[in-house]
């Protein structure tokens, strides 16, 4: 019996299938809510698992577009989904930092992996994946290269504005005054880390700390967060799928 979890985000759609406690298929499509992305992610995950829709006993949706996915038997918040997904990937995790496309959240898990508390960003886009996207556009580089450039920095340039638009102006000023691009990129990563660290401190840092969501793949942000929080941060190459994985695990729990 298969269980599906689909995470319909603002910029991407992710789907995971589990069977007997193991991931048997997954897909990630760079199209989010309001597109064919969720449907494609679901079909591709089924194909990856060699399954057909009839094999799926229960499907749980999560993410910003969770209510718009008509194929779900139930929805759960992305908070619970990332909590479950990360508890599966890191059984000792007590703090999960998830930076998504349009929000950032810090989730406290109890010893059993259940969500005990959480804090999310306020209405400001700073400290979210969207902030990184805007900055990558300003620098005219693919978002995936931010990590590579940040690693080449000699000294992170200060990007102090909490407003995305103001920070964009700061980045342009830094470039205009000749600051090397890697230093600017490191400053951008530090800016995100600083905003998210403030949220994490409000929840209270309990080790093991792990990072979830698409931004977890950005080593520049991860390292900046480790420095700011003073703790190592675990992450998985499947971090971006953690929400969908959590939804699939919930589908499985619900059915047993």
């Amino acid at each position, binding site marked *: 019996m298969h269980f599906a979890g689909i995470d319909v985000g603002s910029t991407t759609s992710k789907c995971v299938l589990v069977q007997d406690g193991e991931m048997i298929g997954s897909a990630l499509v760079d199209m989010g809510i309001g597109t064919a992305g969720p449907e494609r992610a679901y079909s591709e995950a089924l194909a990856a698992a060699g399954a057909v829709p009839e094999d799926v006993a229960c499907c749980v949706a999560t993410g910003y577009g969770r209510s718009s996915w008509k194929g779900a038997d139930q929805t759960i918040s992305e908070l619970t989904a990332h909590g479950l997904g990360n508890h599966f990937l890191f059984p000792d995790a007590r703090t999960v930092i998830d930076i998504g496309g349009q929000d950032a959240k810090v989730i406290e898990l109890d010893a059993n992996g259940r*969500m005990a508390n959480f804090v999310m960003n306020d*209405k400001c886009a700073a400290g979210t994946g969207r902030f990184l996207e805007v900055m990558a556009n300003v620098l005219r580089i693919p978002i995936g290269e931010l990590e590579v450039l940040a690693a080449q920095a000699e000294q992170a340039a200060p990007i102090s504005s909490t407003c995305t638009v103001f920070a964009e102006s700061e980045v342009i000023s830094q470039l205009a005054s000749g600051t090397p691009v890697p230093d600017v990129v490191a400053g951008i990563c530090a800016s995100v880390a600083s905003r998210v660290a403030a949220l994490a401190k409000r929840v209270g840092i309990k080790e093991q700390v792990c990072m979830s969501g698409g931004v977890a793949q950005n080593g520049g942000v991860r390292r900046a967060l480790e420095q700011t929080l003073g703790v190592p941060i675990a992450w998985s190459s499947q971090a971006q799928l953690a929400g969908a994985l959590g939804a699939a695990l919930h589908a499985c729990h619900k059915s047993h």
Partner: protein
Amino acid sequence: MAEEVKKQRTPPDPNSAKYKLGKIAADAYKDAIAAKERGEKVAWVSSNFPVEIPETMGIATVYPENQAAGIAARGAGTRMCEEAEADGYSNDICAYARISMAYAKLKSCPEQDVAMPDVLLCCNNICNCMIKWYENLSRDLSVPLIMLDIPFNPDDEVSDAQVAYVKGQFLDAIKRLEDITGKKWSDEKFQEVMENSCRTSRAWLAATAMARYTPSPFNGFDLLNHMAVMVTARGKPEAAEAMETLLKEYQENHETGKSTFRAEEKYRIMFEGIACWPWLRVTSTGLKGRGINMVTTIYADAFGFDYDSFDNMIRAYCKVPNAINLETARDKRVKLCKDNSVEGLLVHTNRSCKLWSGFMPEMSRQIGAECGIPVVSFDGDQADPRNFSEAQYDTRVQGLAEIMDSRKGGKTA
């Protein structure tokens, strides 16, 4: 083709508390307009100004905060805020103030028209933005401003010196009002108003305290509507009578197992902050749809005043929630949580109210720790609809429900 069948609305029962309270709130606006037409003076009054003073003197009143909330709830918040912003008021300023400044200029808003003022009665025990708001109204409308300074109290009790400081201002305000309106203060009338105010407050506080029963005999969002009478009319005998009706109805609901919360009450929370008036239905249904009843809020209890003398009335106004220290304010909320078996706290980070929202991160952390309950906050605004995201609200409320479910042994997490 089948004819559309419209659902008939049940006419309101004129003996119900809902009808009586709604009528008192609506009549207050009409009475002020009628008084103005008769050539009497009208006062615009801030919410925690002692209502006993204009009530004793028979002065018709308008409460700009209630007017702004009504305008926002009826969908005109953006239009009025933008009107004020076009005149140079920052969108960081309280949206009640922006709507009020816009109304002072336009003198018309079909969503809630009011009589224009001849005098302004302001008290800063609720916030300091109020001072500049009323100073600007005074300047723009060329009407006198009577300002009561009731400072923030860092101590646990109200000192005799503070009472004396405030009492001198009360007496001066009465003298000035006599000069402006030609109406006289009467100690006998004050005694009557005081008794009405206390009677109204006692019934109101007893009604809100009925939330101690599980399930609660009412939906906490009812309180947000009913409290308009507490703000504006608590010194009137009909307000006392209406509140006693409300209390009786809640007692009957409890005895018969009924509730105005029209869903299964799965979870009980405290709501912190002023209501998000432009999105009241969304914020309410987001909770009700998940079986979450907002059983208590300090915002409702804040307008219950019980005292037995002129000096103790002053003490009561020196102890309103926004004028007291963090520890005292926290303890009041912790008591509400414990008395009403609250399982979670939902905090409205109200972009209009820097004072209230500024101290909430620390206070809500302490409440959460003391009561052992999850604390969740969302961004919104008491009157500016542009500061709220429905999707963001929904995620937070679902997350809160999932934590509460998990604690009850549910399968959410």
